[in-house]
């Protein structure tokens, strides 16, 4: 049993070591770290009720200045503050949806690979159907049907990512299972389910991690799209997509209204992609620059 | 290139090739010399990583650059140093004067093009002929290697390994090259197919009047098809001679080791005799003989001084300190006008 522990631990450590080598991945990690830190300390910087959601018409649409580094929006609220708080929303949506839908997808993938036959068929058909609908349409339909609140949004944008998890998990598990049978044929003594389980986990770890990182990015982008269409987190909650939608009407004279929220989204997606790419390269045994 | 009637097809002098990688400089070829005449077949024998393929690629100037660099040497093809050629001139030689076939037939052919097209292509590039002629010629080549010409429009996946290699040979000989370089052409094939392919090569070598350089690690293949043999170790030749010289009067300890490691069905030996140790690190530069660590005849001199090239007769030389006191040295051979 100790061998497996060592193997798992060293694999994580090995991954981390290779990840550190990739310059792009490191940059991505730093950027995300900044983002997360800022998001966490947000309440220390701004008072939610006063600064973020309270309207202050006198100060509306000010260009960026020392007092308001990103300017104020159409309701007089400080944009920088809203963006920082928006980071919390986006990160919550991204991570929660990833954990939730990822878990569902992984479980389904494992079940499909392990049991095979009819069960596998049903799960894969279901996965195909889900993939056939453009993800944003699916999200729109779900939100439109069940109402606009944070939880529904998390589900709505997450559902479309489930098939990807199912596929990857299933593929990884199948590889291991096939190997195990061959090994079992040659070895003396059966492999206990627990060892099998560990084997499967170590095999799936890599691709799932890469997938998850990239999915968080797409989910955040999709949530922003939803908000942009007016189907996202309700006002006055500061969500980047919603901020873009709101500022659009005035962008001719006040482009800063649409500049910063978009930049925030791009920044987040970029850093996540950098990490994802770095992970993919670090975990690919074939690649050796 | 003036097609003189000269006897010497290839004259390679002192080739040195390095690969400059992030992990250090790999000295792949360290002073390689090859002299090949018309109608001769040279076997280049050595273990994997000895620099054989790199040498072959150098003749075609297909060394990937970066990271490969030809640091020194001259390669004369019918009197002209091709290392000085501009790329466009070199391209005219490839496939028409010198051809090369590679080890694995499964991956040597482009999967999305028909086999006929892949043969026609090389003809089209080097000969002025209208398309009908080209196709006719290509079909002829298929027949020559023993494949029905109506399979012109088939794809590589429709052929077995042996047939694929025949197609590769057809492609290589389509323009009647003076020199054919075959890099381990039978290694990836079954033993029975190996024999067939060697027969095909022997036969065509005669028919097409093509000189051959055959790279292999298999002494049996060498015995089948080669006239002269160069044994390569760590990027340079350590023994060279006619087939008889090498097989009947083996001189270099390494060559000796190669023969000894072949399983002999007649001998009543219990164990195989492999050569102890492994190939030297190609990033290392040796002051003495590269085989020093594995040689059972080694003395201190072997590690300190590079062994000289010692001629044992007018065809056979060996690079080893064991024969230092033999009469004919390099100098005397040269004085005799060899």
């Amino acid at each position: 049993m100790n061998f497996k522990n060592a193997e798992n631990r060293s694999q994580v450590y090995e991954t981390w070591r290779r990840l550190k080598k990739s310059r792009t991945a490191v940059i991505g990690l730093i950027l995300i770290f900044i983002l997360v830190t800022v998001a966490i300390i947000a309440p220390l910087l701004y008072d939610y009720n006063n600064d973020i959601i309270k309207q202050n018409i006198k100060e509306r649409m000010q260009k960026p200045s020392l007092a308001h580094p990103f300017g104020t929006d159409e309701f007089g609220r400080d944009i920088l503050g809203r963006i920082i708080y928006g980071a919390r929303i986006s990160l919550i949506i991204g991570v929660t949806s990833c954990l939730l839908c990822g878990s569902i997808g992984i479980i389904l993938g494992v079940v499909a690979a392990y049991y095979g036959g009819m069960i596998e068929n049903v799960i894969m058909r279901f996965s195909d159907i889900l993939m056939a609908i453009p993800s944003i349409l699916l999200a729109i339909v779900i939100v439109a049907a069940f109402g606009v609140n944070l939880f529904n949004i998390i589900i709505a944008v997450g559902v479309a990512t489930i098939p990807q998890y199912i596929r990857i998990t299933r593929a990884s598990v199948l590889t291991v299972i096939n190997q195990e049978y061959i090994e079992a044929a040659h070895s003396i003594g059966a492999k206990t389910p627990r060892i099998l389980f560990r084997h499967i986990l170590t095999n799936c770890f890599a691709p799932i991690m890469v997938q998850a990182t990239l999915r968080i990015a797409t989910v955040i982008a999709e949530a922003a799209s939803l908000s942009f269409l007016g189907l996202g987190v309700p006002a006055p909650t500061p969500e980047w997509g919603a901020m873009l939608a709101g500022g659009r009407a005035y962008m001719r004279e006040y482009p800063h209204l649409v500049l910063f929220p978009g930049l925030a989204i791009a920044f987040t997606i970029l850093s996540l992609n950098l990490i994802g790419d770095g992970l993919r390269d670090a975990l690919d045994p074939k690649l050796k620059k | 290139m003036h097609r003189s009637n000269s006897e010497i097809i290839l004259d390679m002098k002192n080739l040195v090739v390095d690969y400059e990688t992030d992990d250090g400089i790999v000295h792949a070829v360290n002073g390689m010399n090859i002299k090949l005449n018309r109608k001769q077949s040279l076997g280049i024998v050595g273990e994997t990583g000895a620099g054989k393929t790199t040498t072959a690629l150098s003749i075609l100037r297909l060394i990937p650059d970066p990271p490969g660099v030809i640091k020194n040497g001259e390669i004369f093809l019918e009197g002209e140093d091709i290392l000085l050629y501009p790329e466009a001139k070199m391209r005219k030689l490839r496939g028409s004067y010198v051809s090369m076939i590679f080890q694995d037939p499964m991956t040597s052919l482009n999967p999305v093009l028909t086999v006929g097209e892949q043969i026609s292509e090389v003809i089209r590039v080097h000969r002025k002929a209208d398309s009908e002629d080209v196709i006719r010629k290509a079909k002829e080549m298929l027949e020559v290697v023993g494949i029905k010409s109506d399979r012109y429009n088939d794809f590589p996946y429709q052929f077995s390994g042996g047939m694929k290699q025949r197609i590769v040979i057809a492609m290589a000989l389509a323009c009647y090259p003076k020199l054919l370089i075959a890099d381990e052409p039978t290694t990836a094939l079954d033993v029975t197919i190996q024999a067939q392919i060697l027969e095909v090569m022997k036969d065509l070598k005669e028919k097409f009047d093509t000189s051959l350089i055959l790279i292999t690690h298999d002494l049996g293949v060498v015995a089948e098809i080669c006239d002269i043999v160069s044994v390569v170790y760590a990027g340079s030749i350590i023994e060279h001679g006619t087939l008889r010289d090498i097989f009947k009067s083996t001189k270099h300890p390494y060559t000796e080791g190669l023969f000894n490691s072949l399983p002999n069905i007649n001998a009543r030996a219990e164990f195989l005799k492999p050569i102890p140790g492994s190939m030297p690190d190609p990033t290392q530069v040796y002051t003495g003989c590269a085989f020093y660590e594995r040689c059972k005849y080694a003395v201190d001199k072997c590690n300190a001084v590079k062994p000289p090239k010692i001629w044992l007769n007018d065809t056979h030389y060996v690079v080893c300190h064991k024969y230092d006191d033999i009469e004919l040295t390099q100098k005397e051979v040269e004085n005799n006008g060899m």
Partner: protein
Amino acid sequence: MLLPVLIGVSFIVFFIVNLAPGDPARIIAGVETDEETVERIREDLGFNKTVVERYGIYMWKALQGDLGTSYYSNKTVIEAFMERIPNTLLLGFWSVVFGLIISMPVGIISAIKQYSIFDNLGMVLALTGISIPSFWLGILAILLFSLKLQLLPSGGNEFWYSVILPSITNGTQMMALMTRMTRSSMLEVIRQDYIMTARAKGLDEKTVVLKHALRNALIPVVTTAGNFLIMMIGSAVVTETIFSWPGVGRLIVESISKRDLNMVVGCVILITFIISIINLVIDLIYVLIDPKIRSSYGIMKG
């Protein structure tokens, strides 16, 4: 393959939409209307039956070509869809063209000149394309080209050049992904033995790349073309909204805000249908390109 997917999709969408809380009949009728009228509306539109029954009736009618009528306009769903779909397809088409025009050359050259400045720039460009959300790109494009420079219209499809900004906006993500994919596929192909063989035959680099390498490199790209298509149609929803492009995407969004359920369900089903058909065509093209796949329909001779 097509049929179960369609049934599944219609099933899912129908159920989701109809499971929604709230009383659609009341919403349609309005808050003021009396209960009797609302009840009548409910009966008319079949809301008093169970969801499963309604689904059955819906599918039965659908198979006969009747996807219902909009609750608002008097058009049938099919009519409204047909009116708008050419615009969406046009947008999709030009988006793909834009994507290919940029991604192919950049991907190929980046692979050939790996690690060069061109390669690095190309990859940066691709990364940017992936990271910038398309709606932001659209907004910025409008800001720059329509409002500041006054070069291109900010919406509608009046002029032939109206499609330019929307196509670029819509196609950027796909372009970025395709560039990366082409590059990595090309990199793999270039290392293959048959490329070395081609060079050893004396072919010039251009032929080696275009005739030998590219054809093999494109195979995986074509395979995923279907996925890109789905992505495109999906992002069309947002793009059409920004540019007021009269396509199906915008129709769906508008219908949602009006709670025009028939329209929403019908359009989503029809869109998925169209995507599936296009995917089928792409699969056929793939069979034609890759001789190995053709082999599963033939016999091995060698």
